[in-house]
C-alpha cells in the first residue's frame, strides 16, 4: 500500500489531489515563496482529520494545514514535501448560543460568512482581517489574525474560547471551554497563533460580539503623511479608542480607488479612515472630536459616511488594498510590524527612505491606531536578483521598527517569511522555551516543520543551556 492508497482509504479518491499540476496549486499561499506539496487531502470531519494525521505519521510525511490560502507569511506553504490538509470542507457553523454569545464553528468557515450569518441575531465575530471575505476562522486562529477593528476589540486570541485539536498522536482533544477563564494551563491560548505547528484545529468555540447600535465612519484627507500620523497620536492621546483607525498613502489610495470607485480622494498624500461605535450621543461627540483634531493637524477634508452603502464601500476599498497593489507590479511583499504610535512618523520616514534607497515601489497601508504597519513593496519577482533585494530591504524595515521599540508581526504571523528574523525580538532563552513547548505537543516535528521558529531555536542547537533551564 502506498501513501496515496492509504489516503484514499481514509477519505476516498475524490478528496485527494496528487497530480503534479494540482500539487503546484497548493505550493503557496497569498505570499511570495513556494514550497512543495506531496499530496493534498480534504477531510470533512475531525475523525477523518485524525485519520489523515495517522497516515502521515506512519509514512513520516509532514502535515501542513491550509485554509483559504490567503495568508501572506507562508504559514500554509509546505517547506518540505508534505501532506497539505485543507480544512475548507469543514465549514459548518455547528451551533450558535445567542444568549451566551458563543458559537462552535468548523475551521473552514469563512470569517465574513460567519458575521453575515449572525447578522440576524444582531451579533458578529469581531476580528476582521483585510482578507475577511475570503479567509477562514481556522486560518485566523493559526495566525492570531488582527484587523482594523481589533484596535478596540483585540485580536483573534481574545475571541477564541476553545479549540478542538488533533494532536501528533492522532488523538482529538478539546482545549479551553465555555467558561471565560477555565482552570489549569491556558493551552487554548498557546494554540492560537501557533500556525499549525502544534496540531490541527478541527472545531472552534468563538466568542461573538453584539453589533453596535450606532456607527460613524470618517474619511479624512491630508496633504502630508506626518499630519495624518499626528492626528492618530492626538486622537489616542485625547482618550478616544476608535473602533478602527486606518491609514493609506497616496499610491495605495489610487490603486484602491481604481477598483472600488468609492470616491476616495486620490490627490491626498494620506487618507485616514476612522470609525467610532456605541450609543448615539457618544458616537456623535467622538466623531466631532476626531474631526476637530484632524482639522487642527491640518486635514484637507473630513467626510462622514452615510450609514450602510457608503461605509461598506470605504471598507471594501481598504480591505482590497493588498490585491489592488498588483496594478503596480505582479508581485508584492507585505511587511507586518508593530511600532509605538509615537514613533509612527519616524519609522514611516525611515521605511520610505529604505524603499527609495533600494529603488522599490512602495505603497503603505496600516492599522494606524495600534501602530501596526503594512508597508508593501510592489515588484516583479522574475527580475533577476529582485527577490533578494526585496528581502534585504524587508529586513532593514523590520530592523528600524524593532529598534524604535516595536515588534515583529502584528497579525499575519511569522510563518517562514519572518522566521529568520525571530532572533531580533526574542533572545535564545525565549526561543528555547518556545521550541520546547512545541516539542511537548509535537516531539517528532510532524506539524508544519520549518515554521515560526528558526532552526537552532533549541538550546542544544545553540550549544548553550539557558540559566535555570532543565536540560
Amino acid at each position: 500500500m502506498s501513501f496515496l492508497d492509504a489516503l484514499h482509504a481514509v477519505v476516498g479518491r475524490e478528496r485527494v489531489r496528487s497530480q503534479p499540476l494540482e500539487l503546484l496549486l497548493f505550493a503557496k499561499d497569498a505570499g511570495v515563496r513556494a514550497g512543495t506539496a506531496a499530496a493534498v487531502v480534504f477531510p470533512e470531519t475531525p475523525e477523518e482529520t485524525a485519520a489523515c494525521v495517522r497516515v502521515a505519521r506512519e509514512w513520516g510525511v509532514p502535515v501542513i494545514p491550509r485554509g483559504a490560502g490567503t495568508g501572506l507569511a507562508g504559514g500554509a506553504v509546505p517547506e518540505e514535501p508534505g501532506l497539505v490538509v485543507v480544512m475548507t470542507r469543514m465549514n459548518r457553523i455547528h451551533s450558535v448560543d445567542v444568549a451566551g454569545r458563543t458559537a462552535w464553528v468548523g475551521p473552514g468557515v469563512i470569517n465574513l460568512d460567519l458575521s453575515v450569518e449572525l447578522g440576524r441575531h444582531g451579533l458578529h465575530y469581531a476580528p476582521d482581517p483585510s482578507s475577511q471575505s475570503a479567509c477562514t476562522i481556522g486560518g485566523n486562529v493559526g495566525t492570531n489574525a488582527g484587523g482594523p477593528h481589533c484596535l478596540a476589540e483585540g485580536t483573534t486570541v481574545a475571541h477564541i474560547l476553545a479549540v478542538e485539536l488533533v494532536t501528533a498522536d492522532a488523538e482529538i482533544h478539546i482545549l479551553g471551554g465555555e467558561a471565560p477563564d477555565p482552570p489549569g494551563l491556558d493551552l487554548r491560548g498557546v494554540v492560537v497563533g501557533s500556525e499549525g505547528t502544534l496540531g490541527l484545529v478541527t472545531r472552534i468555540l468563538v466568542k461573538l460580539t453584539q453589533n453596535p447600535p450606532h456607527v460613524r465612519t470618517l474619511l479624512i484627507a491630508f496633504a502630508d503623511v506626518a499630519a495624518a500620523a499626528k492626528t492618530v497620536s492626538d486622537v489616542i492621546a485625547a482618550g478616544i479608542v476608535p473602533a478602527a483607525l486606518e491609514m493609506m498613502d497616496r499610491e495605495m489610495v489610487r490603486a484602491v480607488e481604481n477598483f472600488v470607485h468609492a470616491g476616495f480622494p486620490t490627490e491626498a498624500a494620506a487618507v485616514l479612515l476612522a470609525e467610532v461605535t456605541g450609543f448615539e450621543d457618544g458616537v456623535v461627540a467622538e466623531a466631532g472630536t476626531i474631526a476637530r483634531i484632524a482639522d487642527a493637524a491640518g486635514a484637507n477634508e473630513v467626510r462622514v459616511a452615510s450609514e450602510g452603502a457608503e461605509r461598506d464601500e470605504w471598507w471594501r476599498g481598504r480591505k482590497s488594498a493588498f490585491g489592488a497593489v498588483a496594478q503596480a507590479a505582479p508581485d508584492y511583499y507585505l511587511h507586518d510590524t508593530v511600532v509605538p504610535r509615537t514613533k509612527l512618523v519616524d519609522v514611516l520616514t525611515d521605511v520610505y527612505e529604505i524603499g527609495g534607497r533600494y529603488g522599490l515601489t512602495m505603497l503603505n497601508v496600516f492599522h494606524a491606531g495600534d501602530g501596526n504597519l503594512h508597508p508593501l513593496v510592489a515588484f516583479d519577482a522574475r527580475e533577476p536578483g529582485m527577490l533578494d533585494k526585496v528581502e534585504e530591504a524587508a529586513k532593514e524595515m523590520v530592523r528600524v521598527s524593532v529598534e524604535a521599540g516595536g515588534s515583529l508581526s502584528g497579525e499575519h504571523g511569522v510563518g517562514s517569511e519572518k522566521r529568520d528574523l525571530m532572533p531580533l525580538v526574542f533572545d535564545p532563552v525565549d526561543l528555547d522555551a518556545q521550541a520546547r513547548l512545541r516539542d511537548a505537543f509535537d516531539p517528532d516535528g510532524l506539524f508544519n516543520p520549518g515554521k515560526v521558529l528558526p532552526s537552532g531555536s533549541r538550546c542544544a542547537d545553540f550549544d548553550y543551556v539557558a540559566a535555570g533551564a532543565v536540560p
Partner: protein
Amino acid sequence: MSWVTTDAPTRAELDACVTCGLCLPHCPTFRLTGDETASPRGRLTAMAAVAEGLAPLDATFEEIMGFCLQCRACEAACPSLVPFGRAMEGARAELTAQRPSRVRTVRHWVLGRALAMRRVVAVATFAVAIAQRLRLDRVGAGPLARLRGLRRLPIPPRPTVGRRFPTAASRRGTAALLAGCVMDPWFSDVHTATVGVLTRAGYDVVVPSAQTCCGALAAHDGAAAAAKALAARNVAAFAASDLVVVDAAGCSAHMKEYGAWADEGAAVAARVRDVTELTAELVAAGALPSIPGDGERVAVQDPCHLRHAQRITAAPRALVRAAGYTPVEIDPAAMCCGAAGVYTVLRPDTSRELGVRKAAQVRDAGVEVVVSANPGCEMQLRGLLGASHRVLHPVELYWHALEQEKERS
C-alpha cells in the same frame, strides 16, 4: 511546451494576479468544493504554470479549465482587475489547438457554424416545437427533459431578422437589434417587447439581415476561429449602426468585447447596449413612463454576464420598479445559476446543483414572478421551478405593464 496560439492568455493578463485569494469565495466551483484547483486563483496559477513551461497542457489542465463556469464572478471581485474571462477563453482556445478531440470538433461545428445557419436552427426549432406539442419534454429525465425550461415555441415561427419597425412617436434615432441565433426563434416574445419598448421611446428599430450569431458560445468554448468569423460578420452588419441593442445578456457582454475578436470590432463594441441598461436610462430620462402598479413582489435574478461581465445591477431592478412592481433580492452573493451556456450540457451535475440552489432561493423569496435578462438562465430557472413560477425578461415585464397602461387609458 507552453502555448501555441496567439489567443493564449498573455503574460500581462496572468501577471495581474497577485494570488491574494479575494476572488475565491465568489467562485461557485470553489464554494462547492473548497478546492484550490476549482478556484479562479488556481486556474490562473495553472495557466501561468503552462505558460512558463512548468507544467504540460495535459488532461489535468483540461479538467481544471473545464470545470470553470466562465461566470466571471471572480473578475468582478478582483481588486487587481485581472481579465479572467479573456484569459479563460484564451486557455480554452489553447486546449482546442493542443488537445483535439472528436467531441470538441463536433461541438465547435454546432456552436461556430450550425447556430449561424438559420435553416439548421429553423429545422431544429420545428422539431422541438413538435416535441413540445407531443409533450415529449414532460416524460422522463432524458435529454428531452432539458427542453422543459424552454418557452412554448410558436408554429409557424415569427422571425424578426431582416425586418424594420418604424416608430410612431417623435423620432429619437435608429436602433439596430441583434436577432441572435436562438433568441429569434426561441425567445421571440423578448424581441417583441424590446421592439415595442424602443419604438415607444422613439427609435426606429432595424434588424439587419446580414447579421449572425454573436459568437459568445464559440468564444467561451475555445472555438476562437469560428468566434472571430462570426464577430467579423456582425461588425460588418452593424458598422453603420449608431446604436446596437441586445436583449440577451450573454450576447451583449460578448459584443462589448468585440474589440478583441474582430478588426474594427472596438468601434461596434462601443455602441452596444444591453436592452436593460438602455431602457432604464430612457425611463430615468423621462422618455418612457414609470407605471404605477400594486407593487407586487418580483424576484430579480442577475445573469452573470450582466452583473459580473458588464457590472449592470441597477437597471433590471429599475425596470421592475418602472413596471409597477417591487424588486426582491434572492441572492446577495450573486452566484451563477449553473446554466452557463453549454456548461449545462457538458457538466449536468454541477449545473443542476447550482440551479437547484438558485431555484430554492426563488422559492424562499415567496414570489410568483422572477425576471432574468439572459435566455440560458431563464431556461435553467423555468426548468427547475416548473409551472409554479413565471420567468420573464425584465423588458417583457415592463412592456406588458406599458401595454396594460395603454388599454386602461
